[in-house]
């Protein structure tokens, strides 16, 4: 037995001893949280540095980078997580189930009609800490919310039409904000409530320069204390944080740890190594190919698997021949052996059908066998039918087309030749054109992408997932799919107030899109999160808002005794 194996054996024994000691008497859940310690976390996008500290930059990553510090009106109700007896995994990248939304800075809210309005009552006594040179400590007031919204609205980088449904935002009194809308929009709370850009940032910070991390100051459980670009972002405990966490029926002052460090590590081998040697306590986005080895060499780790929150597919430009013919698109789908990809390429670590609706979208997701037969057929391997369809479309001799792929994704660079090999068997030839990241994305946004385009597209939430990819002229619509009927249905969905009716509308649209096959639908991989057992009050939840894990991380605590006993 070499040194490392001996160490691991010792750790396993220590762990077993600790766990059995813990199980004597009280259950594991009744553990009293310890205060203190540091958490090193590698989040889902561990290879990316923070994009911006200023919400007016409209950066999608803002919630992830600042979620520990800047708070929003609403956030996930983590008490509804599976770990605590509920039914939600909180994995979706930008969706909160409507029964699992709690008021974060909002204490309560009510909707009114004619016109559609939402009145939000803010919590009282929520404080912005003192920030020397920027602001004195003071209470959060309604004006802060109004100011944050207005600043976003007036930003030159704003997404056009994003707030078109908003008429005005006013502070009725010190703790009441009134949103008046021109019409109902099903995404009203997502767009400014728990979304990507909805952080409440005080005027003083904007005046001092919100883009400078040294000025950042929010109401959250942590404060931004250090930033080494390309290496780490460090947050320190905010001793005056307003919220308490309920553990086993007892309220505890939050947060528990002294410091949280979000690490940026570009290289896969390096961040896996950091996890292995506990330089990372939590690592969220582990590829399936790395799991087996990690389980062997770091047996103490705890694991959680979840379906990737992005769909993988080859988009086909429906505005070019021969992809304007639905038979061709369907044929290509049937020509690819998707079950074999799941079993052989991903080693079982993928789901056949996980996009455009994510399996976690309760109420919106239908499994494959609930789909119409025409849709199901697209996921069965049937090269003969594919050839027949191609012959029907006059392409018995086959054809060739160019497919662009980003050279930045090793997975896609491997996957595409595999798909190409399947297509060769029905006489369809793929010319693979790898592109560097910037050029690749740009091809899509300028709508100059090739006939084929292999990409991964984030699910976000049920309405956005369809809208951003299948409505005419949207940015993330590489297949150039355009159906005026679909556009109308989408618009109607936004106006539908009844959620169950919306769910039905979305289910129907999903079925329609899957059948129309503007993409070669590919299996959705399964991703893994791993963490060391001394990280408590956590079970692999990933987001409590739109790409916002802050509230989840803020509730973790570290069992420092266990950590020492395990040798770290």
């Amino acid at each position, binding site marked *: 037995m070499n040194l490392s194996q001996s160490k691991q054996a010792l750790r396993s024994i220590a762990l077993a001893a600790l766990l059995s000691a813990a199980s004597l008497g009280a259950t594991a859940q009744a553990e009293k949280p310890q205060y203190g310690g540091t958490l090193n976390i590698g989040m889902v996008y561990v290879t990316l540095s923070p994009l911006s500290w200023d919400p007016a930059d409209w950066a999608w990553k803002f919630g992830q980078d600042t979620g520990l510090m800047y708070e929003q009106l609403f956030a996930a109700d983590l008490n509804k997580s599976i770990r605590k007896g509920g039914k939600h995994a909180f994995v979706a990248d930008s969706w909160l189930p409507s029964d699992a939304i709690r008021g974060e800075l909002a204490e309560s809210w009510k909707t009114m009609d004619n016109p559609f309005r939402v009145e939000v009552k803010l919590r009282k006594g929520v404080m912005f800490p003192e920030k020397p040179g920027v602001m004195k400590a003071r209470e959060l007031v309604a004006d802060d919310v109004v100011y944050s919204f207005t600043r976003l609205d007036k930003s030159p980088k704003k997404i056009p039409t994003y707030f078109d449904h908003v008429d005005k935002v006013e502070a009725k009194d010190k703790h009441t904000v009134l949103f008046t809308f021109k019409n109902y929009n099903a995404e009203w709370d997502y767009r400014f409530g728990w979304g990507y850009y909805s952080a409440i940032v005080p005027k003083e910070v904007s005046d001092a320069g919100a883009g400078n991390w040294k000025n950042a100051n929010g109401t959250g459980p942590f404060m931004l204390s250090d930033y080494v670009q390309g290496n780490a972002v460090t947050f320190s405990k905010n001793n005056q944080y307003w919220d308490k966490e309920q553990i086993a029926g007892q309220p505890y002052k939050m947060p528990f740890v002294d410091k949280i460090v979000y690490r940026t590590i570009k290289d896969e081998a390096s961040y896996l190594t950091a996890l292995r040697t506990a330089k990372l306590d939590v690592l969220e986005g582990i590829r399936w190919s790395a799991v087996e080895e990690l389980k062997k060499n770091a047996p103490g780790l705890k694991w959680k698997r979840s379906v990737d929150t992005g769909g993988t597919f080859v988009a086909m430009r429906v505005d070019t021949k021969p992809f304007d013919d639905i038979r061709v698109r369907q044929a290509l789908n049937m020509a690819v052996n998707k079950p074999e990809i799941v079993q*052989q390429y991903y080693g079982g670590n993928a789901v056949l059908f996980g996009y455009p609706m994510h399996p976690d979208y309760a109420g919106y997701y239908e499994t494959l066998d609930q789909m119409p037969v025409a849709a199901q057929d697209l996921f069965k391997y049937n090269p003969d039918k594919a050839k027949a369809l191609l012959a029907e479309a006059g392409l018995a001799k086959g054809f060739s087309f160019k497919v662009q792929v980003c050279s930045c994704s090793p997975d896609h660079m*491997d996957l595409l030749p595999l798909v190409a090999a399947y297509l060769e068997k029905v006489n369809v030839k793929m010319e*693979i054109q790898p592109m560097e990241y910037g050029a690749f994305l740009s091809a899509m946004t300028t709508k100059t992408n090739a006939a084929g385009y292999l990409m991964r597209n984030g699910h976000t939430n049920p309405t956005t997932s369809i809208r951003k990819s299948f409505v005419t002229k949207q940015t993330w619509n590489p297949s150039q799919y355009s159906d005026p009927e679909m556009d109308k249905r989408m618009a109607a969905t936004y106006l539908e107030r009844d959620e169950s009716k919306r769910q039905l509308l979305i289910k129907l649209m999903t079925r329609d899109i899957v059948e129309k096959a503007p993409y070669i639908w590919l299996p959705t991989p399964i991703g893994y999160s791993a963490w060391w057992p001394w990280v408590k009050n956590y079970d692999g939840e990933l987001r409590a808002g739109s790409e916002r894990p802050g509230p989840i991380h803020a509730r973790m605590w570290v069992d420092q005794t266990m950590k020492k006993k395990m040798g770290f």
Partner: protein
Amino acid sequence: MTDTAELPSARSPTRHFFSRLIHEKPVGAAAALVFLLFVFCGVFANLLAPYGFNEINMLERLKAPSWKYLFGTDNLGRDMFSRCLYGAQLSVIIGLSAAALATTISVLIGLLSGYLGGKIDMVVQRIVDAYMSFPELVILIAVVSVVGPGMLQIIGILSLVLGIGGSRIIRSAVITARENMYVHAAQSIGASTPRVLWRHLLPNIMPPIIVLFTTRVGAAILIESGLSFLGLGVPPPAPTWGGLLSGSGRTYMFQGPWLALAPGLCLTAVVYATNVFGDALRDLLDPRMRGSK
């Protein structure tokens, strides 16, 4: 100081050279053989490879080396031995062409700048300086982004980067060599510049040129592997050794160590062989060393 070995001999100069190689530099000769073996494999890869380089077979993925698959298979079931053979083709092509082009560029610039000196030297050196202050990466990414990833582009850009970089070494050798007495002698009897350069200067800077060329072969192969690591090399499914090593070699290094060992050993062996051979060659060709031990 002459030596009997320089007297006209009955044997041809080439055979004379080879017998010297084998007798005086056996290690160098062995390295030459190794290198020739790889070139052979590269040229005849299509005939030698038992499978295609992109023969995907999902049922045979990640199989350890066996008689069926001499170097095992990768995560898509492709035979690694075949891929390495085709990799030899690519790596040797890239290495030799980039090195040849680069050395030519280096010699031209170095000769021009070092020998002519004065204003020409200053101007050329300013341009070289300007060029050399660029982080290589910017140039590489810029060109790769503009023209797209691909083998010809990589060879071109490698030649440029290595060539201009190497010119300073040649220039410094030229500066030292031109102060030598026989060069002055030739100049004083009125020999034309090209004649001086060709007959007197060039032979005297052959050793650094040869060493430069041999190191460039290895350097070109190594830089391509570095580019592959950053995602900018010759794109898959092209099986360059660098691409194999930095891609599936690293991802599957635990499930299939042969995925890294095969291309890694090939790469190391070829770079090693070129350099050792180059050393031997230089020792044999250095005119001032003839006649001494």
